[in-house]
C-alpha cells in the first residue's frame, strides 16, 4: 500500500473513530474486496459470504475505537471476519461426502462421476484429474472451522505464521501444529473421498 493510501486509511479510521459514517463508508469501499473474498473462501457460498462480510463490517464500525493505528486495517478486518465466522453456530452445516456410486455435483452445475482408481493407483494420479480442485474445496468444508480458517489464511490469503497467530489470537507454535494437522486431515479426507 502506498504512503498516500496508508495516510488516507489512517485519516479515515481516525474520523470513523469519531463516529463519522461517511469516512467509514470510504473504508468499506476500500476494503470490501478483501473482506468479501475472505468471507467467500471461508463460507464457500455467495449468501453466507455476503452475510459474514457485511456483519464483519458492521462489527468493525462498532469496534473501531479499539483499533490501533499501527496495525494493518485490512488484517484487522480479517481478524474480525475469521473470528465472527468461527464463532458462528454450526447450524445448517452441509456435510459434503462423496459416494463412489453417485456423481459428484460440481458447483458449476456439471456432474462428475468419479473413476475408481486401481487399488495400487498412485495418489498423484488423482491430482491430474479435472475434479481435483473441486474435491479439495469440498474436503476443506469438512474440516473443523479452526482447521479451515488456518488453511484459508495461509494458503489463500498468504498470511505468515506470525500474522495468523495474531489473527487467531494464538501462539505461532499453535499455528504451526494446527496447520500441519489441518493439512494432514485435508489430505486424508481427500483420499477417503476417492478411495472409500
Amino acid at each position, binding site marked *: 500500500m502506498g504512503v498516500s493510501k496508508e495516510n488516507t486509511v489512517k485519516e479515515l479510521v481516525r474520523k470513523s473513530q469519531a463516529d463519522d459514517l461517511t469516512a467509514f*463508508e470510504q473504508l468499506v469501499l476500500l476494503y*470490501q474486496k478483501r473482506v468479501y473474498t475472505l468471507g467467500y473462501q471461508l463460507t464457500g457460498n455467495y449468501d453466507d459470504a455476503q452475510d459474514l462480510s*457485511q456483519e464483519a463490517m458492521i462489527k468493525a464500525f462498532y469496534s473501531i475505537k479499539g483499533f490501533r493505528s499501527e496495525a494493518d486495517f485490512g488484517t484487522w478486518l480479517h481478524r474480525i471476519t475469521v473470528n465472527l465466522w468461527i*464463532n458462528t453456530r454450526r447450524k445448517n452445516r452441509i456435510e459434503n461426502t462423496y459416494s463412489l456410486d453417485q456423481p459428484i455435483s460440481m458447483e458449476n452445475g456439471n456432474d462428475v462421476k468419479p473413476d475408481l482408481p486401481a487399488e495400487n493407483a498412485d495418489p*498423484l494420479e488423482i491430482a491430474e484429474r479435472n475434479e481435483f480442485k473441486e474435491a479439495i474445496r469440498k474436503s476443506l468444508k469438512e474440516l473443523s472451522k479452526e482447521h479451515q480458517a488456518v488453511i484459508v489464511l495461509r494458503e*489463500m490469503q498468504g498470511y505468515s505464521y506470525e500474522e495468523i497467530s495474531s489473527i487467531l489470537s494464538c501462539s505461532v507454535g499453535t499455528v*504451526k501444529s494446527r496447520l500441519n494437522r489441518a*493439512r494432514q486431515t485435508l489430505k486424508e479426507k481427500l483420499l477417503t473421498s476417492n478411495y472409500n
Partner: protein
Amino acid sequence: MDCAYVKRLFSPAIDGYLTEFEQVNFEAHLKECPDCQRELELLNKISFHLKELASLPEYAVPDGFTGQVMSRLKETKKSRLLIIPAKWKAGFAAVATAIIIAGSTFGLSGGMKIAKESELALNGHPETKVLEQLPVASDMQPESSSPDRQKGDMLPDKSIDTADADKKLTDGSIRVTSKGNIDPVRETALSSPPAVLLNKDIKLTSTLLKIGTPFPSEVKKKALNFASSSGALSQVYPEQVTDDKKIQFIRLNTSTDRAPGLISELLGMGTVISNQGESRNITAKYNEALASYQELVAKMDAGGDQDKQVLAAQAEALKQQLDNWTEESKNHAIVLWIESPKNQ
C-alpha cells in the same frame, strides 16, 4: 529422522519455515523414503491448488455491497441510539437508571430469559438484536436468497431472545419488500397506531437497590433464585470493576403488586447502601413519540418524495418504543446493585 517426525515437518517445509538443521535432515530422509516423498508431493499439490482457489471470479464483490453495509449500519445505529441514552456513559451513578430504560427497550418483558447472562456492555456497545432483526428496507435481501437464514447468525451469540423480534414481525410490524414497497399484507399495521393518545398518565416505576456484601456470588445466586421463584424475570449484566470495587447488576422485572415483597426480601441479602424508588411520568414523552409516529405514517400514506423505506424504518423504531413503554408501565423494574470489595 523417522517418518513420524518427518511428517510433522511437512507443513513447515511447504511454507519454507524449516530451520537449516531441519531442512538438511528432512531432505536426507526424503532421499531414502519414497513413502514420505509421495506424501509430500501430494501435500504440495494440494497446497498448489488451494493457492489457485485463492482467486476466483465468484469472489467479485456483489453490486451494492457497501450501500447495504451502510444501510444496515445506519439502522443498527438508530436502534442503538434509541436504546442507549447518553446516560450510559456518564458513569456508574446513571448506569442503573439506564439499565431500567434499556430493559424496556429491549423488550425484555416479553423475551427475557430467567437468570441468563447478558453480554450487554455497560461501557461499550450493547449488542442488541431486537431492532437489527427487523427487515427494514436496508436489511432486505432478495426473497430468493437463503430465506431460512437468520441474520443474527454471524454475530456472536447473545442471550437476548431474538425470537421476540421475529414475533414482532408476525404481530404486525412493518415489512418492506426488496423492491422497496410496503408489503400490503402487513401495511395495515402502519395505519393502526400501537395505542391512542393517553388520557391517563403512563408511568415507569423502578427501584434501585444498592447492597454491599463480601459474598457477591452467593447474593447473586440467592437473589436470582428468589426472583425466579416469585415469578420475576431476571437479566444479569456483566460485572463492572472499578479501582476498588466490583459491581454486579441484576435487573428484575416483576408485576407491580409483587414488587414490595421482592424488594423487602432483597434488602435482607446484604448491607443496604441505598434504596431509591422512582416513578417517571413519561406521558408527555409518550404522546410526543406517538405524534411523530402518526406523522410518519401520514407521510408514507401521502407517498411524498422521501424514501418510503427510511420512513418505514423510523416508524417501526418509534412503534417499538411505544409498545415497550406500554408494556413496561405494567411492571415494576428493580435494579439490584451488588457491591463488593475488589479483592473478593
